[in-house]
């Protein structure tokens, strides 16, 4: 088994495949269907024994760095209008890269306006293992 991060972005990544309106412009039924899909997706991963963690992030926050001895850390931001903004993630523990890609593909088909898939880009990233795998 190997762990992967499925990263959702508020913005960023390749150009959107389908340009859809923000969710507050959808009909209430479309919003409900989308939220149900997201909930069911996590529940299904849990059932298959592949879910490790699922979290959502608020759009605010800031960049922070050390600024020298005796000085408070410097903060920069929030950059809510930034080009690349992470919205949340799933951590999955699956058999293969192909399975991770398959799951990301399913998540990307979440329904949007008119019940049609939103074709959202998701970033799939393998975790670095803790243990070396080579033989001696």
């Amino acid at each position, binding site marked *: 088994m190997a762990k992967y991060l499925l990263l959702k972005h508020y913005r960023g990544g390749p150009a959107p495949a389908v340009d859809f309106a923000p969710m507050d412009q959808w009909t209430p039924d479309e*919003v409900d269907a989308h939220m149900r899909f997201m909930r069911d997706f996590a529940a299904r991963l849990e059932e298959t024994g592949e879910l490790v963690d699922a979290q959502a992030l608020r759009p605010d926050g800031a960049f922070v760095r050390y600024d020298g001895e005796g000085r408070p850390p410097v903060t920069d931001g929030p950059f809510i209008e930034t080009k690349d903004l992470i919205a949340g993630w799933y951590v999955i523990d699956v058999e293969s890269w192909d399975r991770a890609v398959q799951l990301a593909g399913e998540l990307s088909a979440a329904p949007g306006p008119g019940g049609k898939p939103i074709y959202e880009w998701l970033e799939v990233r393998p975790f670095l293992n803790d243990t070396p795998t080579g033989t001696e």
Partner: protein
Amino acid sequence: MNEPQLRDLVPEVIGVLVRRGADFASAEDAVQDALVEAVRVWPDDPPRDPKGWLVTVAWRKFLDAARADTSRRRREVRIEDEPLPEPVEAVDDTLRLYFLCAHPSLTPASSVALTLRAVGGLTTRQIAQAYLVPEATMAQRISRAKRTVSGVRFNQPGDVATVLRVLYLVFNEGYSGNIDLAAEAIRLTRQLAAMTHHEEVAGLLALMLLHHGRRPARTGPDGRLVPLAEQDRGLWDTRLIAEGIEVLQAALARDRLGEFQAQAAIAALHADARRFEVTDWVQIVEWYDELVRLTDSPVARLNRAVAVGEADGPRAGLAALAELDPALPRHTAAAAFLHERDADPVTAARLYADAARSAASLPERDHLTRQAARLNAQLRR
């Protein structure tokens, strides 16, 4: 004997061990070990005197641990093997344990964790699950908290107000994982109320009961938030609500008002309305005035503004809201709600969408997004 009944005994048993000379941290560990054994042994072999059993087993665990510890350090064993008679009331011990776990030297998160373990008798794993942190993290938080209070004398008098703040924090954490923290907070507050005659303890217990009684109606079957106006009041737990009102009335009769009694009074007025439309908003505003006077809390002022919107109309509510800092949590959501009431769906939809972006929780964000979508759909028709 069910699990909560078993856990009811925990603070008394810790108290007995401390009186016999155990330090608090070791006593607490020993009682946790005894609990684990009780859960294993009791189903087949229930004791006649559960508390006596726990005391005996916990004391033995304590002695074993102390001996292992002293022999490791090559020190002389100085602890008597024979248990001493119990000289004091269990009630005093339990009460002191509440104070110790809410000691002002502890951070709120540490107080909460220590209270749930030493007073509540929950395992570290259960507490970790409830707060969605790794068990090792919670174990560290608890052992650091124990070290922090290790110098505090067990019989030092404490402040009920700090205990109430801790219990209120636990209650507001609500329900996640397998542990219902709201129910646990009610159990602990009930136990505290039985030992003290403090009006605010009763006030907090009433507040919890009244909120908890409405919980079944607060979320839909798919986990979505259901606003008060749309709740199916038939789902309310009338038994809990009746108890909450009774506890509150007894507290108010003593004429020493505090913030929890005022909050409970507001909750009682909501619970009293059979339909949303017959809510006594005028009285609710009066209680919010009391609450603002008692706490000077911006959150109370924000909730007051919403109540004013119901009592005197949305314009009055918006005027009250305009006096508050727009950066307050839920300020934008309250403004959206009042603008919708004021027949301004365009502004309301925009504000709901704004509020969704700054929501602090997923259920709130989803709820606010739905509100914006609902108004925008109406506007398109």
